[in-house]
């Protein structure tokens, strides 16, 4: 376990006390929404780290912050409700888009 290998529970956005069957189910859901192959591979690796051996899983559990909270439905609803710019506002690039533009500016 190094800081270069992401913590499998954190990567899967799971509470460290999640039972194994739920780990697999949550990972499958996450994989469906993965944007690229690298993310799918990382998810697979994280699941492997947690289900391969009970001993290893317990160690990961002990090396993970207890009681995280990954779901914030109220905040998500708020973000969704105000994601679109209000009427009359000129469209703006995101920070990432702006940074890419600046990196290649002529």
């Amino acid at each position, binding site marked *: 376990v190094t800081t270069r290998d992401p913590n499998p529970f954190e990567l899967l956005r799971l509470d460290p006390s999640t039972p194994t069957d739920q780990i697999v189910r949550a990972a499958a859901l996450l994989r469906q929404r993965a944007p690229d192959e690298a993310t799918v591979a990382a998810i697979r690796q994280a699941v492997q780290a947690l289900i391969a051996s009970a001993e290893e899983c317990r160690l990961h559990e002990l*090396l993970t*912050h207890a009681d995280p909270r990954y779901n914030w439905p109220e*905040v998500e609803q708020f973000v969704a*409700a*105000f994601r679109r710019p209000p009427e*009359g*506002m000129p469209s703006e690039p995101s920070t990432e888009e702006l940074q890419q533009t600046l990196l290649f500016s*002529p």
Partner: protein
Amino acid sequence: MTLEAALLAFRRADFSAAESLLAGRIEQLRQASETEARAEAAYWMARVRLALKRAGAVTEYEQELRSFGGLPRAACWFVDLLWRSGKPDRAEQVWKALRGSPRISLCDEAALIEARILLWRGDLGRAEHVLIEAAPRDSVVQVERLLFLAWVHAARKEHDLTASFLRAVQPGCFPEKALRQWNRLLPLNPETAKPPAGVSPVPWLLHQASLAVGRDDLAEALLWTQRALAEDPELVQVGERGRLIRAALPNLKHLARAKALADVAQFAPEVPALPPPVLIGALDLIEQEREGRALLDAAQRGDLVDARKLLGNLAERQNLPGKLAHHLALIYLRAAQHWDEADKPHLAEPYWRLCWPCWLRWAAVEAQPEDRTRVFDWLLALHRRRLKELLARERMEPARDLWRIIMDLPEQVQGNPKLAQELAERLSRFRDQLATEYRVQTREATCYGSITDGWNADYERGLSGLTRLLSLDRENLLLLTALMEICAEWFLDCYNNEALEELSQGVDRFTPFALQLARLLDRSEKPELSARAALAEFTKFRGFVAADPARKAALYREALRFHPGSDNVRQLLAEAEAEENP
């Protein structure tokens, strides 16, 4: 007609004027056969044409490139133009072929190209290092260096630093329109920014809050939302959506507080940040402590120095709740591991010193015995690996610091004799395991080192390796035994190669270790047969090199005391006694 005139037009964004001035200048320089100046003008011509979105701007420069006679800056400019024309892969490919050349690395542009490629690859740390080290003479390159440093800090969301680099750009040194673009790296100020003309303020403020959540700027999201509420307490301007804001507000406050804690726990920009949702459990426990609330308030004020100091005080508190100790142990572990992996042990050390007391507190009040074993075994294995790495590279000072941290652990739990005893036993096993692993490692080094013809091993390599660990663990029986064994093999090789001077010097050099082993064996209650045999063999060689027959006989007797079954020593003793009493 000078290049400066064309550059002035470029800075004014009057690209057509710049193009015509440069065309004349290039022709002038071609006739005067001034290659370097012509290359520079051609580069600016390509940049101007890129700004004018003319097709073939870079191809024309590439065609001209052959006539610049291998000028290093001209090659750098080519890579720069490939980059600016949106061909980063080709730019990187050409750059890889060029970058090793010392003439290229002396060019002002080299650092900028390197930094841009690193930024493109997402390596902010190395890009920043390259930019900080660079000291370009060219004024435009100087400006671009500042802009890319601003880029680095913007990517890290260090808005104050971004602003300071953007402010450092002198007006008039760079096209104003382009600078306006760069200034957009700074996010809008949630306390003062105003909506564009004709846009309703409250929906605009809440839209900004939504964008801030999207980029994980949770503190800002909260500020935007609170401003919207101050503007329109009943949220009339957003109708039905108002209830979503009221429902989200407590969560936003919670997340903003978690983000503040994540900022505290990111002890340096290079240390990977923890996502705020991971820290919710830690946050809720910290909020229950008086110093905890103070540290979160300090963090939300942006006073991270004070917040980290308060976090450190919390970590050192004797009555820290076990669950919170576990969270703090993980926070400090992350930083310590990061710096160890970055091979910066002096930066890792303070975090190990804060991390261990938290693990010990957790072990004392919260952990199940088997979990304690799992975590301690894992941590000590990490330290063993690190110590071996440091010793292999002769980095004795950090190795000694780490050794002290580990060996002082039982002292930290003196109030808990059971845990102190358990730790002492664990550390005894740690020393044995480290010695065994190190012994195997040094034995391999002896076999595969540089071995002189006629000799069986590279003894010096093995012995110096062992003495390094022995300088930390002076009373380790296993290590001293291994040292005596290698010495005995070396001395035998010296004898066979008739290198008696080397043998004598070797005996003198390692006798203090033999005496140390003898003291330990005298104190030991166990038989320690292999240690006794190895020491007997070493003592035999001490006798062999002794000049005085009485001393020789005494040393052989000493060897027999350690290993009474050695026929060879018995025979040598008989010969020495005969010589002593002819």
